[in-house]
């Protein structure tokens, strides 16, 4: 005989009952009443920690029994894989290791792969709309796009060489020259083929060097780095939301800082990829990737008061490492 609470589902009245088994029937003994339910109709809820067992009867009544294991045996419903996983510390240790492994794999392989796939599936039209919208929103971020002071002849010459490079691509490339004193000597690419060169960069570098830098930017566009970045950030956010679902706000804040560092890691990978793309193109055209290295060196030299931050925190991989790779014969 097993003691249990019988809750009929109509009132909050608690009936203390005794349970026993007769053949394939569960016998419920109340005070002055009795009820039989076929064992097959007794739905035992999965065992959870030390909680009393809960059995749902067909008419909505519930049995609550503190002796969970004994009731499971009485009903002949043993074998609960989830409860067994949750019962032992050694499985917890394995689970922690599994989570760390899954997180590392997700970070190195899964997330980049998923973002890559999502970027490939995104229509080029949408991607270039995204790039145009970003370009249009730059003034709101405090970057005023002032018209270029470069001689039109030089702009034209660069534009022609650039078109020769990009005409085979399915991205609708657009090259913009702007005078951006706040940004300094720089070039950047937006999703879908919007590429911006600052006057400051054009005055610093030769035409050959500018083309090398533009090929690096083309690498960002062709490999869809901007879009992949958006997807990866969204994916990280989603996973953080799932994992930190019930974490206090202080923990979430600290995690957000960590996510920023993690995000930087992806950016460094993208710079390497863009370098590789440019080097490949240059070699194919019979030129040396060292041109890009020269351009990089001039760019770095032009930055005011420059700090070598440790590699983990740097967006661009340590420049020395990039230069070495590009100058390899």
């Amino acid at each position: 005989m097993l003691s249990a609470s019988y809750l009929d589902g109509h009132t909050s009245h608690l009936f203390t009952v005794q349970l026993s088994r007769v053949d394939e029937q569960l016998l419920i003994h109340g005070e002055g009443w009795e009820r039989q339910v076929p064992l097959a109709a007794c739905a035992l809820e999965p065992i959870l920690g030390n909680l009393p067992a809960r059995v749902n009867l067909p008419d909505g009544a519930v049995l609550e029994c503190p002796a969970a294991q004994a009731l499971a045996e009485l009903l002949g419903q043993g074998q609960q894989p989830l409860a067994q996983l949750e019962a032992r510390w050694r499985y917890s240790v394995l689970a922690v290791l599994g989570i760390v492994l899954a997180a590392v794999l997700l970070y190195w392989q899964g997330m980049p792969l998923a973002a890559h796939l999502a970027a490939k599936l995104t229509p080029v039209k949408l991607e270039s709309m995204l790039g145009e919208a970003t370009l249009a929103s730059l003034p709101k971020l405090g970057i005023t796009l002032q018209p270029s002071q470069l001689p039109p002849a030089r702009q034209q010459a660069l534009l022609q060489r650039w078109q020769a490079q990009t005409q085979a691509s399915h991205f609708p490339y657009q090259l913009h020259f702007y005078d951006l004193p706040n940004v300094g000597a720089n070039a950047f690419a937006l999703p879908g083929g919007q590429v911006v060169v600052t006057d400051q960069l054009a005055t610093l570098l030769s035409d050959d060097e500018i083309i090398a830098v533009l090929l690096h930017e083309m690498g960002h566009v062709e490999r869809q780095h901007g879009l992949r970045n958006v997807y990866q950030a969204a994916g990280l956010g989603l996973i953080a939301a799932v994992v930190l679902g019930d974490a206090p706000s202080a923990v979430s804040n600290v995690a957000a800082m960590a996510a920023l560092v993690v995000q930087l890691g992806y950016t460094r990978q993208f710079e390497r990829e863009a370098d590789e793309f440019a080097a490949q193109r240059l070699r194919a055209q019979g030129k040396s990737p060292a041109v890009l290295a020269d351009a990089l060196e001039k760019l770095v030299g032009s930055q005011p008061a420059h700090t070598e931050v440790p590699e983990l925190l740097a967006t661009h991989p340590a420049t020395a490492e990039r230069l070495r790779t590009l100058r390899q014969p």
Partner: protein
Amino acid sequence: MDEQMQSNRWAIQFHGQGGEYFRIWIVNLLLSVLTLGIYSAWAKVRRLKYFYGNTELAGSRFDYTAQPVKILIGRLIAFAFFALYAVGSNLHPLLGGLFGLLFLLVLPWMIVRSIRFNLRQTRYRNVPFDFHGTVWGAVKNYLLLPLLLIPSLGLALPYVQHQQFRFVVDHASFGDQRFSQLGSAVGGYYRAALAGLGVMLVVGLGFAFTVGATIFGAGVNLSELNKSNPALLIAAILPLVIGYIVMLVGFSVVAAAVRLAQANFGWRQTALGAVSFDSQASPWAYGRMMAWRLPLVVLTFGLALPWLKVAQSRMRLNGMSLHAPEGLNQFNAVVQNAGSAVGAEATDLFDVDLAI
């Protein structure tokens, strides 16, 4: 009679154990990660079943009966909405604004739905709770009332929180009986908030002092920092980062203690038919517990979170008791006719798990 009727007073007891919950939580987490978040709906049900099931009142446990699939559908809808919002706002600022407006319009409806869903899935002695709040009520309490914060420079916050608590309690029911508020707890809400504000000021001043000491005391010249080597840079910034984290943790601890004190005041004014509630959990003890457990959670990369969650529930719930002159046997489940039961199923589709 099957209950200890002599005193008519029952204390709530929480039986959860940190280690036991850790083992459940870590399996939940592993399966959620492996299934890319899909399992998280099942994990939520298992987590709530653990906490509700470990809450004992007069010899019976609470239960959470939601179907994980419904929670999953709700989460997918929410995810789709935010994905559309993210893409839309990147394409055109107007689209982003439009989505924001749409969200504001849908928000009160979602608040009512999610409170109702979660209460309907909560059972005690196999009798469900329910919620009767209207969308207009949610508009008033969650959209319009918070506007008071602007002209009052935030001073209306305890009042707004109190009204939101009342909105939930006043429209909740257990079986065929409604919850009600005996009197206003708004004074208690203000006292708790003011005490918390005082403690937060002390914590904030502590941080300001750390910043000052780092910059002036150590004689660090910020413009010099750029040129120095990374090790020095980190050494100079580290006290600031640690000070900042201590401040964040401090604020979270104080905010949690204030919420507990406010909940105490709220529950003491709450009644359910002839049943009245009492809540005497100590905000100081709660704050002390949080003050050492929360940093532990940060330091262990979240692994200590289950112990924190269990300790929170234990302190909150063990402080609660009920006075029931007529006992707890007389609540009747509301008989739903077939038609409305089907309707309830269909409208329960949207469980958006808002953290309210």
